[in-house]
């Protein structure tokens, strides 16, 4: 087929571009699952003034602002308040009783995007009496989305769906208590932001966060190939205290993973894993 050669060339161009981005900007997308990143890159190219990745590359490697637009296009920033209500319900019922036994709780939320799930967790912990007793480090590779996360502003059009999610997750109050509506925006309560630190962190190159009681990384590693997944899991393991909790997306699991034997799933299917207190090296 005539298109076949074009596809092959485009894939070569993508590999070259990702290599160039790694060398110039330090962002490493070479170990990302290929089908979805190709899809996002191709979408960016179609919307751009360039005819090919080769044509775009010359400027992408020189113009930071143009690269930032590509970065925004290829990192996945889709999230929502109380995404997977069953997960938040399981945290409330099965994890919080353990967290309550600590004087202070440290949480790392890796790949927080615009922060909705971090704020959801903050709401949950406030309702469970842990306000002022926890700190959450919410990190992402993309600094533009972190700025939005720190603002804590939601679209008013999503409030019905978020309210339903909140209720299904076992919410004890009214979701409307946590935001102020202003025109088309909903501004999350300042007290929720107080315990969250938003910070840049790149799972492909940066180091662990020490001494965490809980690490959340949901629907982030599904975009990574095996080697990068293993790197992330090693970071999370190195960050977690014994007895700490590792929370993954509902279609992610520690099965067939090197460190799987050091963890036990709290309840089958919740994807909440507890780190064992001792293990054989």
């Amino acid at each position, binding site marked *: *087929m005539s*298109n*076949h050669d074009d*596809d092959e060339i485009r894939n070569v161009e993508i590999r070259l571009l990702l290599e160039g981005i790694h060398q110039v900007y330090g962002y490493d997308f070479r170990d990302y699952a*290929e*089908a979805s990143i190709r899809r996002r890159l191709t979408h960016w190219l179609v919307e751009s003034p360039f005819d090919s990745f080769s044509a775009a590359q010359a400027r992408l490697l020189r113009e930071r602002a143009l690269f930032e637009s590509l970065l925004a296009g290829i990192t996945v920033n889709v999230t929502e308040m109380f995404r*997977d209500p069953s997960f938040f319900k399981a945290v409330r019922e099965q994890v919080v009783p353990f967290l309550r036994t600590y004087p202070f709780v440290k949480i790392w939320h890796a790949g927080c995007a615009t922060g909705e799930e971090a704020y959801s967790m903050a709401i949950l912990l406030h309702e469970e009496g842990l306000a002022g007793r926890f700190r959450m480090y919410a990190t992402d590779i993309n600094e533009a989305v972190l700025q939005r996360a720190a603002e804590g502003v939601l679209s008013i059009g999503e409030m019905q769906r978020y309210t339903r999610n909140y209720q299904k997750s076992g919410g004890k109050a009214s979701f409307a208590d946590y935001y102020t509506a202003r025109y088309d925006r909903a501004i999350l309560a300042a007290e929720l932001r107080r315990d969250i630190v938003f910070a840049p962190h790149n799972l492909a190159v940066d180091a662990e966060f020490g001494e965490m009681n809980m690490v959340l990384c949901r629907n982030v590693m599904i975009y990574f190939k*095996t080697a990068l997944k293993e790197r992330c899991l090693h970071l999370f393991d190195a960050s977690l205290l014994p007895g700490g909790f590792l929370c993954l997306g509902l279609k992610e699991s520690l099965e067939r993973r090197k460190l799987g034997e050091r963890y036990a799933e709290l309840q089958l299917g919740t994807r909440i894993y507890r780190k064992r207190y001792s293990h054989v090296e």
Partner: protein
Amino acid sequence: MSSNFRAVVVGVSSGGVQALTTLLGSLPADFPLPLLVVQHIGAEAGDGLARLLDAQGPLRVKEADEQEIPRPGHVYLAAPNYHLLVEPDGRLALSAEAPVSYARPSVDVLFESAAEAWGPALIGVVLTGANHDGSRGLVRIKARGGIAIVQDPADAEAAQMPQAALAALAAAHIGADHVVALTAISALLAALAATKGGRHA
């Protein structure tokens, strides 16, 4: 020599549970290809559909897991709230990216990535549905040399999705390879899967 084909991808929306029950229930237990299926479904539907379909016929039906290698005679259903994609090496991949044409999972996302991975060794099937998902993907499968099968709109519970697929193929100046009633599709797939001899060698 093994089959000319590596996999079958199926896209279906409203009317899908009945259509999939009919299609999967009539495929033989020794069907030599994996089937990857996107059925539009609510975000919190759980894995009930996979279990229901698994009980209907001889083929093993399960929700697709990331990095899974699809096996012959197995059916992989896209999980609610995730797109299903195929990696260039043929492994399955998931994505929680934004819905495409309001759908997650999206038929187009599966079809386009599968076309890229398997090229002419892919069979795409569009069944009943009340939207236009799958039409872009089916054009892509044809452009990469694969086979396009569309359920006859007159036979479909919801005609819009097969109609949109046929219209998109026509607009791209390519025809569907087969426009047939649902009950004829399993025999057609079995016959295609049995073709050998390097049509694309």
